[in-house]
């Protein structure tokens, strides 16, 4: 089943990396000198969330990069607009 899924998503590098990230993460708890039981549910939730957010962030950044590239040869003042857009996106990232 896992193999099938992997084949299915192998075309997208983002999804692939996220998918493997999730399974990488599931295997073992962090190897710190921790004395606290992380709890199965809470642990899996964090891994899942990290994977989902990684995809969201990747998609968002790719979209912004694309926008930047597309706008680049346009009319003057675009680079300034890009900087503005970048700052705004950073703000949004921080808020989320």
């Amino acid at each position, binding site marked *: 089943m896992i193999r099938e899924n992997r084949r299915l998503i192998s075309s997208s590098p983002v999804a692939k990396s996220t998918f493997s*990230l999730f*399974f*990488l*993460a*599931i*295997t*073992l*708890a*962090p*190897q*710190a*000198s*921790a*004395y*606290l*039981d*992380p*709890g*199965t*549910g*809470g*642990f*899996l*939730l*964090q*891994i*899942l*969330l*990290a994977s989902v*957010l*990684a995809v*969201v*962030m990747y998609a968002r950044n790719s979209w912004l990069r694309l926008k930047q590239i597309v706008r680049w040869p346009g009319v003057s003042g675009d680079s300034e607009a890009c900087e503005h857009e970048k700052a705004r996106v950073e703000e949004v*990232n921080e808020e*989320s």
Partner: protein
Amino acid sequence: MRKVRGSFRDPDGEVFDSGHLIYRTVNQSARKDFEYVRSADSFKHLLLSGKLIPEKTVDHVPLGFAESAHYAVIEHERLSLISWPYEWGFRQLRDAAIFHLELQLELLGDGISLKDSSAFNVQFKKAVPIFIDALSFKKKEQGDLWEGYTQFCEEFLNPLLLASVVGLPFNQWYRGAVRGLDSDLLYRMLPLRKKISPRIFLHVTLPVILKKMADRARPPLEKRLSSRMREARGNEESYYFLLRTMRNLIRKLEDPAQKESRWIEYTSDCIYTDEQIAQKKAFVSEFVATTKPHLLLDVGSNTGTYSKLALENGAVSVVSVDGDPCAVDVAYSSARELGASWLPLCVDVANLTSSLGWAGEERSGFLERFEFDAVLALAVVHHLLLTAGIPLKEILRFLTDIASEGIIEFVPRDDPMFMSLCDRRTAMGQKVTYDKELFETLLSSRATILKSKKITDTGRTLYWFRRN
């Protein structure tokens, strides 16, 4: 010098109590984190702003520890009022939870995370939360997860949801389990529409479902996955996302006391006229101004009117206990406003907190933590007698044992409050042995009555006693 029993879990150090100061040993294993954290600006800022317990590294070790075993010894101020989360009201636990999350958010900016999220690490100093575990902090590595997430849910979030969403006070459950409330158990109690509300879904429902899925997986999850995959990876976004959604969820939890506080005010004062209240207050004020107690216990404090009065008249610290969590919430709000050394606790005086946890000594009991030199027992004796079923002799023994001086209010048989509590017993044909003469005889056998004052026409009387 006595080892603090609750400090055994952390492998990085131990805590000792000298009676005046607290000493904490820092083991070699914690050296790197200790140095990193102490150099961070956010940590220094939190120390200065009083959110972390003040600390200083001491060169001279007055303890007789084997010095090679640890890397450093730090000295802390000793908080005079220690309490456990199962003794708090809703607002206290909610404030402590938000405080804990904001502490983490502030430190995260400097790459510091907390290795646990125990509610027992938060205490109240002058009714404001303060973080007391100086070894909870560590350098956050890239990809680290929030290690204390499940503990935070069990010790903060789930008890709050139990009170706010399910409508049951968390205290008894929390005290029974000591380590909070399991998500699985809370999940069973939540109504369906709450289970699927977005934030509760994220922090309760989803972890429970994922745990069930992992438990059912055959062969077990660990075996199914290849051994070369060895690292758990989180990311910054998910760490912040968890902390922020948790904070937003907890901030919005409705306080169950809000609906009932009016009723509390009504019942506490309806029995007296304004003049009688003034007389009662004058008597209490005189007692406190004369005895100047270091630590006063207000038994059955309700919303804390007389605790506040005691603090205003010279009591150094006050612990007020009441079994009603709503009354405790109101008292806590007054304590925050007053900013005094006042700790309102949701404790039933007929069932004081005992020592709990590992080996029966991890979390010390109520009487071990406090040494009172004065007690107020206003309009409470008849509740203990009739509701809790404690004989008068026993009540007076307890009250004169717990502090050397105090005020006890006698409520006569024909007082409306006494009658309303007693009606059921008389209807059942039970006899309640209780009158003023007996009260005075029993009290005099253990203490000297220094002063007494009749307050109401029905015969409510205040007795100022000093133990023999």
